């Protein structure tokens, strides 16, 4: 073949050294190209921003009772109307978002950490310790969650209140007497006690398969302790699926908080919670449907966006789940 007619090859373009795509580059690439996931992420970021700046964005004080504007239909002054004691619904929705976000973050972070530690340690140690932990996790999961959380909530509220009161006599911290704040703590505690079972089970199954891998044996053969291997090798390898689970369970925790508040054992009034708002509005749903629709639709949108986000992350992080 005669090559003389060909243009000289530019060696620099031929030998262009391209950085190899890492696992995470690949994940970000796939996530960026999933519009539902991106939409979910945008909604979630918006929620976070409105929650953080809720007191600045709200047109009214969420606790302010305006006796001249009771049960007003949505209007320019109150875009989502007012409730039966004259509070602006939109302002309460914003503050309710802050509540939901705060509670859900605490529950999810605590659940993820407890689940990670319990699941990985149990799987790694094996034997009786593992059997006992599995027994506890299975026990937790065999009850209806909301029932169990409600039970823990009701059972522990007096104790936690008593602790807060006795702590107050020593420290005189004002927040220990704040009923609403204590109800936050009770909700986080009762849901958190139930919610760590899922990450624990996921982590355990992942670790069980990981620990059969040779690199764990190799670290052990160089003197690594069980804790060293767990913290430095197993947990980083489990992190991918944890991210997905955390996203999905974040939504669950928000729904949980709303459910407890709806049942009247969650966030105490006058604290703002979407669940509590739905409950308070339900008596007037025929005449003033916006009282239920505003928090209900907000909750649905947030839940849906978190679901999309979780699904997209799952597709991006697990190459086998990607559909062509």
């Amino acid at each position, binding site marked *: 073949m005669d090559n003389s007619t060909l243009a000289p090859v530019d060696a620099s373009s031929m030998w262009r050294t391209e950085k*190899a795509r*890492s*696992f995470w580059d690949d994940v970000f690439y796939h996530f960026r190209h999933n519009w539902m996931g991106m939409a979910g992420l945008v909604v979630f970021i918006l929620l976070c921003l409105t929650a953080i700046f809720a007191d600045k964005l709200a047109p009214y004080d969420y606790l302010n009772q305006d006796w001249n504007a009771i049960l007003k239909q949505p209007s320019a002054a109150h875009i989502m109307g007012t409730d039966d004691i004259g509070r602006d619904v939109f302002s309460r929705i914003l503050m309710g978002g802050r509540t939901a976000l705060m509670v859900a973050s605490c529950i999810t972070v605590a659940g993820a950490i407890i689940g990670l530690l319990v699941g990985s340690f149990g799987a790694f140690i*094996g034997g009786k310790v593992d059997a006992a932990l599995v027994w506890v996790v299975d026990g937790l999961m065999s009850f209806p969650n909301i029932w169990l959380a409600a039970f823990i909530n009701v059972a522990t509220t007096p104790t936690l209140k008593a602790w807060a009161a006795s702590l107050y006599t020593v420290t005189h911290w004002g927040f220990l007497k704040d009923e609403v704040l204590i109800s936050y703590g009770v909700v986080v505690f009762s849901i958190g006690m139930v919610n760590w079972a899922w990450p624990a089970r996921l982590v355990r199954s992942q670790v069980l398969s990981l620990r059969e*891998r*040779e*690199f764990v*044996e*190799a*670290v*052990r*053969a*160089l*003197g*690594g*302790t069980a804790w*060293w291997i767990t913290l*430095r*090798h197993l947990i*980083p*390898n489990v992190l991918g699926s944890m991210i997905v689970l955390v996203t999905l369970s974040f939504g669950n925790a928000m729904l949980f908080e709303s459910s407890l508040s709806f049942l009247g054992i969650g966030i105490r009034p006058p604290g703002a919670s979407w669940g509590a708002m739905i409950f308070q509005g339900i008596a007037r749903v025929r005449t003033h449907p916006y009282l239920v629709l505003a928090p209900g639709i907000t909750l649905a949108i947030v839940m849906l966006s978190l679901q999309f986000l979780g699904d997209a992350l799952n597709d991006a992080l697990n190459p086998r789940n990607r559909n062509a």
Partner: protein
Amino acid sequence: MAPMQMDSSIKADAPVVLDVHDLQVCFPTREGIVTALDGLSMQVSPGEIIGLVGESGCGKTTAALSFMRLVPKPGKITAGQILIEGQDILKLGPSEMRTLRGPSVAMIFQDALTALDPRMPVGRQIMEPLQIHQHLSSRAARARAIELLASVGIPAPEKRFSQFSHEFSGGMRQRAMIALALSCSPRLLLADEPTTALDVTVQRQIMSLIKRMRDETDAAIILITHDVGVVAEMCDQVIVMYAGSAVETGPTRTVFTRPTHPYTIGLLSSTLELTRDRSLPLNAIPGLPPELIHLPSGCVFAPRCPRVGDACREARPVLEPVESGHQVSCWRWKEG
């Protein structure tokens, strides 16, 4: 065959790094107890390379793992004695045993791709044993890790330090694995088929690297392989294993030039040579190794042995000396 390197610098009074007596390892299973190792004895001196050869499943890897007390569950060391630098490791507590793993005994695994954490940069993994055993600061450990990477012949070690194992080629990965095993200058190095996953040219490089490391550190090395050629080239001593016990041991040259056990003879005659007549079929040992759960009551090799006699089926032979340092466990080796 390549010229055999015979290093007979082993002195009889040299301190022994590893001294194993009558080691027995059992795995309880649902069908019964599997005896993976039965009465293995061996001594390794500093600077010596001992080859463990045998078919898959004959207990080579189990032996190596038991020297670190890492026999996989539910396996157990049921009898015998393992002395590492005079210390009986079977009497140590778990934390004392951990302090030996790394500085006293380390292992090179067969497949570096699975033996390195896929989510941790290779250099960081080499830092770990230094931090565990020598309590180096992360800065000092990093410097030492880069030094180690350079010493095993990895170019641009500073750049390689922060790369992941999937960014290494097979040979480079195995070099990193060797650097990892050597990080705490172990006195005993277990190399479990270190070149099986590599292509032939890279195999040679890795083998000469292991030899060079032996010369530099004077570590004792146990080389596990099923490649008779590798043993001939690398090892001072060889232990031929069959179904969990040693059938023939001795200096490599002696065993390979005057094999006495029928299994060793079969193993050696089943190797390929370039000059052999291709029209002839390849010599193979007929049959399969016995299941370790149903070991024959006599000699374990009896069912496949061309020289089998009545005595072989009745009692198990023990290692007996053929000549200086050369031992065989066979009832009928004199008749061969």
